[in-house]
């Protein structure tokens, strides 16, 4: 019943009428062509191995997220004993010293955003895998949201890079990046790759 209504109320799907759109330039052409007739990019109905790639990147990102949080991300020494701090320690330290705004910002950028992305992409993956029709419009909105916030996780990496580059006063104060930030950067990159390799069209492909 639903299918009949869809067929009646909605325009036909590209697959059903044998056409495909180029993912690069957007030109619509016959589904049996393998390369775009305008830009020459390979033509695919869906992103290649979208679910597998996204899951692989997601798993890798999850694995790296552990050392990124356990290992210290930065070594700072300002008029006193040098100390290495992990992301969470830094947040706690900022919070304790009264800079709750900075603490919140860092928490959002380094914990909130990645965790949200893990959850969102995980959910999208599971849903796409099951081809469920559940909350499609919301899932599509979630996907757009994840793509939009993705790079804000890079805030941490940029903070560390800037501080290490600027704070070089030898005895008075120095800051050096530590291994944790590399993992954190990798997490961010992998999550962006995961988001990029997820094909939003899979959200809609279940009802065929």
């Amino acid at each position, binding site marked *: 019943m639903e299918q009949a209504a869809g067929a009646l109320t909605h325009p036909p799907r590209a*697959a*059903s009428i*044998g056409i495909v759109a180029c993912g690069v330039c957007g030109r619509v052409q016959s*589904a*049996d062509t*393998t390369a775009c007739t305008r830009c020459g990019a390979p033509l695919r*109905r869906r992103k*290649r*191995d979208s679910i*597998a*790639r996204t899951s*692989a*990147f997601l*798993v*890798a*990102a999850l*694995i*790296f997220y*552990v*050392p990124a949080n356990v*290992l210290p991300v930065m070594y700072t*020494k300002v*008029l*006193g*004993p*040098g*100390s290495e701090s992990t992301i969470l320690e830094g947040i706690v330290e900022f919070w304790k010293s009264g800079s709750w705004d900075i603490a919140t910002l860092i928490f959002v950028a380094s914990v909130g955003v990645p965790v949200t992305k893990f959850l969102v992409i995980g959910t999208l993956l599971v849903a796409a895998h099951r081809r469920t029709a559940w909350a499609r419009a919301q899932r599509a909105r979630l996907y757009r949201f994840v793509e939009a916030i993705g790079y804000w996780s890079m805030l941490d990496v940029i903070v560390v890079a800037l501080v290490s580059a600027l704070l070089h006063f030898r*005895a*008075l104060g120095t800051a050096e990046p530590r*291994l944790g930030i590399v993992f954190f950067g*990798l997490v961010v990159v*992998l999550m962006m790759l995961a988001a990029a390799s997820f094909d939003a069209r899979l959200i809609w492909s279940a009802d*065929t």
Partner: protein
Amino acid sequence: MSETQPVGAAPPAPLVRRVRWAAGVIWLVPIVAALSALSLVIHTWRNEGPAISIAFESADGLEAGKTEVRYKEVAIGRIEQIELAEDRSHVVAHARLDRSAESFATEDSRFWVVRPRIGTSGISGIGTLLSGAYIAADAGASRRAKREFVGLEQPPAIIAGAPGRKFALRAADVGSLDVGSPVYYRRIRVGRVVSVELAKDGGHLDVDVFVDAPFDDLVTLSSRFWNASGVGLSVDARGFKLNTQSLATVLAGGIAFQPAPGSRDDAPAPAGSEFVLYDDADTAMAPPSGDPTYLRMRFDQSLRGLSIGAPLDFHGVVVGKVVSIELDYDAATGRFPLIVEAALYPARLGRAHDKIVQQTPNDNEEIRTARLLKSLAAKGLRAQPRSGSLLTGQLYIALDFFDRAAKVEFDEAARPIELATTTGSFDKLQEQLAGVVDKVDRIPFESIGRRADHALAALDETLDQVNGSVLPELTTTLASARSTLSTAGATIDGDSALLDSVGETLSEWKRTAQSVRELSDVLQRHPESLIRGVPADEPPVERKQDSKQDKRNER
């Protein structure tokens, strides 16, 4: 995948194969991620050294998670946690050492907190003002593992493996010496005091010093160490003396050493050699004293000016010193004799001592000294307080022979050895003076005076008489004497007749005497002329004529 079915049958086959291959490759990404994370875990685990705990009196400057454990300024670990000991007497710092620093978790490792310190030996740990305190470690030689340590409160004076040698000194008193006090050789700083400890029986102090290379070779078996602390102002029987090593030692204390005078034993002393720490340079440079024997002397006179430490002198050689002066009461005589105890160093008698030792090699030093003193006492050896310096009025005890000393019993078994005494030289002089004064006192000046007074009164009377009667008479007598004299003067005046006649009479006498001489001459030469008359030869006549002529000429 259901959508692909309507499209042509040819293309799907290669497409599926490519998908499978690519899908397999993409799973390498999480595998690599897992492997790298795993390797990181393994690396961290492998790098993790032993966890140790160090007890400190306070956690001043220590911060959990920040304070490092360093050896030679290289971080070898980090404090992970600091907690209060259960009995609240100290704090326990839990540190995690690096894998490479495992050798520091052994029995004789030492840990201490490096903080800024300002001491007499300089300023240290300035860097920690900015960087914060850290825990310094010093590894020992032991291989036996240990996990719980007690941290040092003061940095150790020597770090294991430092070039140099350690020596043990035995001291009666350390003065202002402390760990870190400098050791000087000819006023050059060559080492420092490593530890100062009271001996177990409390009888002396064990002072360990460390002499840095290459100066450690200067410590020979004949070296003498002395305490160069502070300013030594001494007033003794030898006068005033002011001793200082350097301004630094005045404040911080210090030890100096030098080879004994005249020693030829230049072999460097092996590490750990034991030496005696003398109180001052003079004692150190003096010939070795050996162990003292104690003498007790009893004086029946005041010993003002005799102080503890006053020398015991035997024929000009200081053989000991006074160690105590006590007042005693003798009920029988009601007097307060003084009991003086002195340490006698028989070894200071030099060769005399060596000879005595040769004679009785088996005896104990005290018995030998007692026997020696007995024989000497029989020959008149007595102790006598003498004035050493008239300037300071200090006394010393002299041992000397007094031939006229009364015989005394010498108790060989008495300990301390009791030595008979005699009164002091100064006191003898005093006694003699007192005797003289006494005699002078006994002269009856009063009666002498009274009699003299009488005599003088009588004399006065006599003189009165003389003045009253004798003198006027004397005046008249003198006047008459003067007139008599003037008469006499007129009589013997130059041109008086009396003088003329006297002159003629005298010349007549002269001539008479001449002729008598001529006669006697003739008679001498020609005694026969008395019988035969004057001989024919003329000379006498001529002479006579000549003499006559002479006389005329004279006149």
